[in-house]
């Protein structure tokens, strides 16, 4: 099972930066991002999330978000998609880094999740 990583942030820069950071430790994973609004302003875009999910080549997707509307848009997408997506209510940067590091070395989902548990803050 190959997991993909999905990053949803209010900021296009945060989303891209988290990808840069975790790619270093997890070069083999599919990591896709949805940052900011359609016009790359601070906010969120269901269309960008949809695109990031479509572009992700993971068998299942581990999804991370920052605040309010990123979460709600991600949840709308979850109701619309057939892909298997796991959403985590954890610290965005630290959670995505933890999950990516473990997914890179093919850690089973249950172990990834037990490592994410202490990062739950939402």
């Amino acid at each position, binding site marked *: 099972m190959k997991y993909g990583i999905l990053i949803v942030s209010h900021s296009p820069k945060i989303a891209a930066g988290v990808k840069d950071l975790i790619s270093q430790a997890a070069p083999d994973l599919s990591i896709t991002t949805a940052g900011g*609004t*359609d016009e790359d*302003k*601070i*906010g*969120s*875009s*269901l*269309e960008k999330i949809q695109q990031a999910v479509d572009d992700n080549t993971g068998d299942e997707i581990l999804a991370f978000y920052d*605040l*309010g*509307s990123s979460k*709600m*848009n991600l*949840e*709308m997408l979850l109701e619309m998609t057939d892909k298997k997506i796991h959403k985590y209510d954890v610290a965005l940067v630290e959670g995505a880094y933890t999950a990516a590091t473990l997914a890179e070395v093919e850690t089973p989902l249950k172990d990834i999740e037990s490592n994410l548990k202490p990062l739950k803050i939402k």
Partner: protein
Amino acid sequence: MKIELADAKKWIESFVKKLEDEKSTLNELDTAIGDGDHGTNMDRGAKAVTDSFDKKEPGNLADLYKATAFAMIQKVGGASGPLYGTAFLDMSKAVKEDNLELADLIQTGTDGIKRRGESDTGMKTMIDVWQPISEALKNDKFNQQVIDDALNSTKDMVATKGRASYLEEKSKGHLDPGAQSSAYLFESLLEVIGG
């Protein structure tokens, strides 16, 4: 009572107009306890609704609410996008077979917001306008006073959902921006059904 296609369209069009006119009011309310963009967000949604109606005249109630939902979901860019979007999407689904009593329609929208926002009344959000309005409609007591009271009730609440919740006690003393935009929605409704 029920609202039919022509009136429902007038309702949404009046809402759109108010959102455009009151963009800066909404931004100011959101500056006090949020990130200052609620007016800009809703104005973007409003313009997208107009574009959508211009492009394709909704032929029935379900289409009208669905087009409104999609415009909000796609263009608002803030939390209010998925919230209004879910409300109108659920309303669209509910009227697909048969039109609903207005009270039930608004309760359906309210329940959609609660589900999407994982929230309820008393949290200083738009729900604090939607829920009292649907009660009032149920009891045939829907009027401007009900809207004003609902909106004003948010002033002394401590926010527990949305960005304002980060402010805790300091969120007191300000109207909730989403409650204000929802008040516009129901003022538009009142205009259309006559109050």
